[in-house]
């Protein structure tokens, strides 16, 4: 174990060169560079058999399944789970109409143990879906359409808050002996000389804005593990670095991942406007025919309504603001009728994967694997990713247990690769679902709204996903943005403060907060690029697509020219900037642990 630590530290010395050069390229003074050299001092190490990054449905399912198998087999293997949010559930945002398929596998017979005092008494699956509706919206009206078969939820699925469910899962995991550590961000992947993953380094805390150490400086720790699972959600920062490091996309011949940005609010509405169990989806207004997306209204229990808009991030017009489109969605009579007179409780935004089967990278690498949305198992036509994420977590947990058990019994040391995990996923119901759904989303980017719907109907009703072709994603989302001069500028009306709000008001409701005195976590590879490319050519799209108002163009006092101001403190950790920046100039890195949104019912 000590040897392994030395190797990891030595490997990081080499990586330190990269760290130092990264520091020079971002806007930090020279003082920071010497600090980086100081930080090469040995950090404390914690040893685990399994380390999981991210306390989302995938990570928690993996941890719970792993511990279940440990108990059955009477093996004592240690698991830890780190989560960058201040508590579990704080960074989780989802619609969410929950398909309990994977939950049934994780906890068979959970529905029979929901009586008072029993194990699943307070499992937050309280509202079953009672009705499905599908609408095409125009400016002032709505046309009821037949429900697509992927949207049949009535009687089977539950309308839940995923924040609540993950909190419940975390409590259960802790009871089973998993060490859950909220408030700790995975900053760096640790590799050894065999180029295997040997763990994750958590971020240092207490570093000031200019890079110097504050009196409260606390170095992060190196979490050394024989296997590390990465369940950071869509566009996770460590997952991105792993995909680059191992060439995971190229190895699988995968298309680039495509994304959408989901904006969500939870409202408490008057009794007369509440129809518990109603699951409503919309297409059309406010999005035009060339922008993919749709809205939802889910009626939860207790007069709560979850509503939101999903906007495909391959939109072309750089002046489009997904946040303002969401406000327009709320102004539509169908939506306004539900929320008028109510109170908005929480707001949030998060990117989601839309690439489906075509974009899944190679899943396993020496020492670890990608699980959940970090890999990208979301079923786009269903807009459900929780059940597939949980299934991937369960399979990864099982394979991790098996692999560690075999290594222990054989007395084998050295890196472990979870080859069976990827193989099992390929024959699981996850891939079956994704296979059937694979041609629907790409049809919309090729042929717009009407062509896409025709293609979707063909693929769903007639060919049932068995068509011999697979439409590929032609380009990454950021490549689809046109120049500002080629697109009509979009003008948005002012918010009314009753059902529509400005960004600061909405941001307040997300509970987002970061310690302001820390280096900005949004790193520009070329700090001068926004003034030369983003603003003149694209009209500063980051000021439009960021749902938290992080990016602003303000006139520089000296030169009078517009300058990019980054209010990193507002960040909702949605990752839209990492996805949509036209030159991929913005890298989203993880800020000090415990910062970010504080969702409780999202």
């Amino acid at each position: 174990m000590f040897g392994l630590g030395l190797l990891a530290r030595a490997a990081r010395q080499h990586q330190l060169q990269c760290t130092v050069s990264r520091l020079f390229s971002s806007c930090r003074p020279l003082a920071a560079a010497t600090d980086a050299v100081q930080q090469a001092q040995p950090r404390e190490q914690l040893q685990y058999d399994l380390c999981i990054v991210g306390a989302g449905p995938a990570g928690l399912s993996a941890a719970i399944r792993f511990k279940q198998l440990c108990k059955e087999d009477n093996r004592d293997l240690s698991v830890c789970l780190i989560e960058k949010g201040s508590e579990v559930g704080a960074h989780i945002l989802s619609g969410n109409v929950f398909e309990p398929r994977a939950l049934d596998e994780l906890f068979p017979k959970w529905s029979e143990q929901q009586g008072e005092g029993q194990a699943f008494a307070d499992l937050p699956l309280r509202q079953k879906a009672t009705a499905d509706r599908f609408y095409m919206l125009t400016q002032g009206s709505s046309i009821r359409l037949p429900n697509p078969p992927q949207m049949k939820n009535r009687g089977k699925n539950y309308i839940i808050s995923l924040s609540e469910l993950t909190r419940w899962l975390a409590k259960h995991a802790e009871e089973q002996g998993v060490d859950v550590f909220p408030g700790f961000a995975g900053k760096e992947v640790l590799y050894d000389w065999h180029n295997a993953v040997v763990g994750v380094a958590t971020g240092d805390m207490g570093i000031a804005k200019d890079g110097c150490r504050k009196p409260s400086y606390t170095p992060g720790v190196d979490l050394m593990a024989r296997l590390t699972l990465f369940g950071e959600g869509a566009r996770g920062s460590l997952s991105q670095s792993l995909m680059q490091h191992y060439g995971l996309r190229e190895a699988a011949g995968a298309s680039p991942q495509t994304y959408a940005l989901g904006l969500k609010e939870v409202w408490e509405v008057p009794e007369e406007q509440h129809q518990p169990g109603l699951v409503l989806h919309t297409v059309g207004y406010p999005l035009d025919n060339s922008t993919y997306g749709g809205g939802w209204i889910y009626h939860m229990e207790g007069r709560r309504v979850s509503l939101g808009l999903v906007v495909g991030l391959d939109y072309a017009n750089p002046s489009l603001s997904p946040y303002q489109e969401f406000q327009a969605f709320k102004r539509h009579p169908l939506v306004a009728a539900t929320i008028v007179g109510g109170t908005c409780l929480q707001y949030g935004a998060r990117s989601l994967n839309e690439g489906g089967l075509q974009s899944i990278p190679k899943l396993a690498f020496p020492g670890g694997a990608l699980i959940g949305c970090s890999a990208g198992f979301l079923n786009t036509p269903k807009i459900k990713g929780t059940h597939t994420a949980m299934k991937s977590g369960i399979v990864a947990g099982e394979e991790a247990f098996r692999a560690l058990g075999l290594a222990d019994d054989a007395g084998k040391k050295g890196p472990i690769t979870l080859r069976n995990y990827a193989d099992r996923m390929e024959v699981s119901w996850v891939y079956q679902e994704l296979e059937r759904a694979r041609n629907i989303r790409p049809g919309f980017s090729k042929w717009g709204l009407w062509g896409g719907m025709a293609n979707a109907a063909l693929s769903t009703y007639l060919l049932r996903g068995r068509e011999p072709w697979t439409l590929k994603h032609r380009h990454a989302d950021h490549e689809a943005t046109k120049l500002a001069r080629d697109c009509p500028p979009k003008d948005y009306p002012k918010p009314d403060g009753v059902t529509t709000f400005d960004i600061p008001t909405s941001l307040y409701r997300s509970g987002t907060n970061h310690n302001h005195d820390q280096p900005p976590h949004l790193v520009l590879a070329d700090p001068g690029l926004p003034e030369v490319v983003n603003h003149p050519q694209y009209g500063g799209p980051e000021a439009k697509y960021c749902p938290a108002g992080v990016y602003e163009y303000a006139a520089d006092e000296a030169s009078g020219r517009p300058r990019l101001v980054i209010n990193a403190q507002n960040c909702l950790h949605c990752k839209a900037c990492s996805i949509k920046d036209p030159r991929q100039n913005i890298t989203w890195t993880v800020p000090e642990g415990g910062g970010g949104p504080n969702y409780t019912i999202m």
Partner: protein
Amino acid sequence: MSKVLVAVKRVIDYNARVRIKPDKSGVDLTNVKMSMNPFCEIAVEEALRLRESKAVDEVVAVSLGPQQVQETLRTALAMGADRAIHVSTEQQLEPLAVAKLLAALARREQPLLCLLGKQAIDGDNNQTGQMLAGLLSWPQATFASKVELDKAAGSAKVTREVDGGLETLSCQLPAVITTDLRLNEPRYATLPNIMKAKKKSIAKLTPQELGVDVTQQLVTLQVEEPAQRKGGVVLGSVAQLVEKLHKEAKVI
């Protein structure tokens, strides 16, 4: 062995958005994030610094309430407290009851110092530390922004934040000190310390064992949200202003 007793309270996280329950009986605590009271965190940090400067030998964290307060005690242990005491009760505790329980504990533990936060951010009472000092007949220094312990002389020099500025006073030990915001910046709990904290002991006591009656003396009748702020109005002339002050605001 000289000890410092630190009282910590589990309250709604300072960052959380608060709502009133529909029946106006109190604040809605379901699905709300709870954490240690910020002033209590400062108290724990000060206690740890006193131990690190060898002014005291042991830091004992205390919390009162239902089972969940053990999470707050674990945080105190993760920051570095040596051991913790949980006074277990389902009863809503008022400042006087808390002061009586802490006084009983202080008589048992015989600490050199009792450190408390100046107030809790849910109740905002700012009474417990003062009442505790009164019950024990110990000197008190509240709103401390600087604490210096002179072990040899058995006294403490405390700088207090008062309305007029800063007041420095000296008091004999044992004493009660309540902390204000600028006293220190609490340290982060590190992962290794969180792991160690899981193994540290939390002793459990009940109010009955301490011989304290914690029945509530006060009944909350109603909790309401503050009045909605109305938008401002731009007026055209002084005459209009006078008219509005006379007719609407009714102040002249």
